[in-house]
C-alpha cells in the first residue's frame, strides 16, 4: 500500500525500543517502539510493526496500516501552510456564517 518513498538513512528495526527525545537528520523508518518525541527534517515512516507515542515534528509522515501512533503531529511547518501558534487550540475558528 505504501511505498518507502522517502528513503531515510535511520532505521529503528522491529524489536528495538527507544525512549526519550530523538532527532534525525534525514528522516527515520520506525519498525520498533519509540516512547518520546521525534524531530526530523525528513520523513517519519511508521511501518506496520512500528509504534510511536510522543510528539512528531517532520517534513513528511507515513503511517502504514497497522502502525501505532499517539501524540501530537506537526508536519510541514516550513511550508508556511500551518497557522501561527494559536491560543485556543489547533482548530482556528473562522467566522463563515
Amino acid at each position: 500500500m505504501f511505498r518507502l518513498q522517502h528513503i531515510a538513512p535511520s532505521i529503528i528495526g522491529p524489536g528495538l525500543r527507544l525512549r526519550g527525545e530523538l532527532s534525525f537528520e534525514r528522516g527515520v523508518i520506525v519498525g520498533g517502539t519509540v516512547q518520546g518525541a521525534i524531530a526530523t527534517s525528513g520523513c517519519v515512516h511508521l511501518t506496520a510493526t512500528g509504534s510511536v507515542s510522543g510528539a512528531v515534528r517532520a517534513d513528511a509522515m507515513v503511517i502504514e496500516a497497522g502502525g501505532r501512533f499517539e501524540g501530537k503531529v506537526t508536519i510541514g511547518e516550513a511550508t508556511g501552510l500551518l497557522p501561527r501558534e494559536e491560543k485556543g487550540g489547533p482548530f482556528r475558528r473562522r467566522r463563515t456564517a
Partner: protein
Amino acid sequence: MNKQLCTCPHCLTQQQESTGAISTYCKHCHMYYRIEPVRMRRVVRLPKENRVLKCPACEWSCRVVSSAMSSQCENCGTYLDLRNYRIVGANGDPIFTFGSVEFASTAQYRSWEVVADQIFVAGRVHSGLRAFTSIELQERGSVRGCQRAPLIRVAERADVVAVRIEADTLDVQGVLRADTIVLTGTLKVHPGAAVVAREIICGGLDVARGAALQGKLTTQLPAREADMLNCTSQYDTGARAAQSVLVAEVSEAQDASDSATEIPAAQTDPEMAGQPAAPAESSGPALSDMAATLPGAPGPRRKSAFLRREISPHRITSRSFFASRVGAATPSGATSSKSAGYLG
C-alpha cells in the same frame, strides 16, 4: 405506427398493415384474410432496472430504472427520491436522495442533515452531510456539521472549515480545518495541502513532502476503534451497501457542450425543468474523470441522464424569474470553468 407489409393470399396484392393487426380485408379483392403473426415485430424496449438501492426504511434491495426520478420500495412502499439537486441561494429544504446534491457557490443552506449518493459543496452549508459514495468539498466550500461518506475529498484550492469528518478515506488537496477527523482508512495530504485538526483518528497516514498537518493523532487504538465503529455504523448500513451494489451503467449521458445547449430549453419552459426529457449532467464527464483518477475511489460511477432540479428559496412561479435564475445558476460558461476547476 409500426407497419408491416402483408400479402393477400387470394390475389397476392401487398398492402401495409399495422404490426398489431391479426386480420384485414384486401384493398384490391376485398377478401378477408388472417395475418401471420410477425416474428420480427419490433420489441418494445422496457427500461432496464439496472440500479440497486437499499431502502432507508427497511433495507430492502430495490431494483430501479437508472433514469427514474423516483421510485418506491418494493417491500415497504417508502418513497425513494432519485433526483439530482442543485442548491442555489438561501435554502433549508430537507433532502434525502439517491441522486447527487450540489451546493453552488451561492448556496447558503441550513438544515439538519442532507443525505445523498454524492454531495458537492462549493457554498456554505450549515448541516450534517451523509453520502453513500462521496463528498467533495470545493473551493470556498464551508460545512458546519458532521460529514460522513466512504470517500471525502477536499479539492485543490478549497479552504474548508468542517466540524467533524467521518470516512473511510480522506483525500486532501486543499486546506481543511476540522475539529475531529475519524477515519477507518487513510488520511492522505497532498503537496501544497494542509490539514489542521484538534483530533485525528485514522488507520493510516500519508502526508507528502510539501504538505502540512497539525493535530493530535491516534491510530488503531482498540477502544477508539470501537468508538469509531459506533460513529460509522449509521452510514455503514445504508451507505456501504448502496455503494457496493450501485451497478455501473454506461449511460447516454451527453458531454458538457451538449448539456450547455439544453439550458435554454429549460428557460423557455419551466415545467420541463423537473422532467427527464433532456439529459443534461453538466459536470458529469468532468466529475467521473476526476473520480476515476482518485486513489481509492469507488470504481464505476453512475451517470444520470436527467436534469438537476433547482431548489430556490422561493417556489418558482414566474416564468421570467425562473429563466433568469436558471440562466444565472447554470450558464454554459460556468460549466466549463467549473470543470476546469476540478481538473486543474
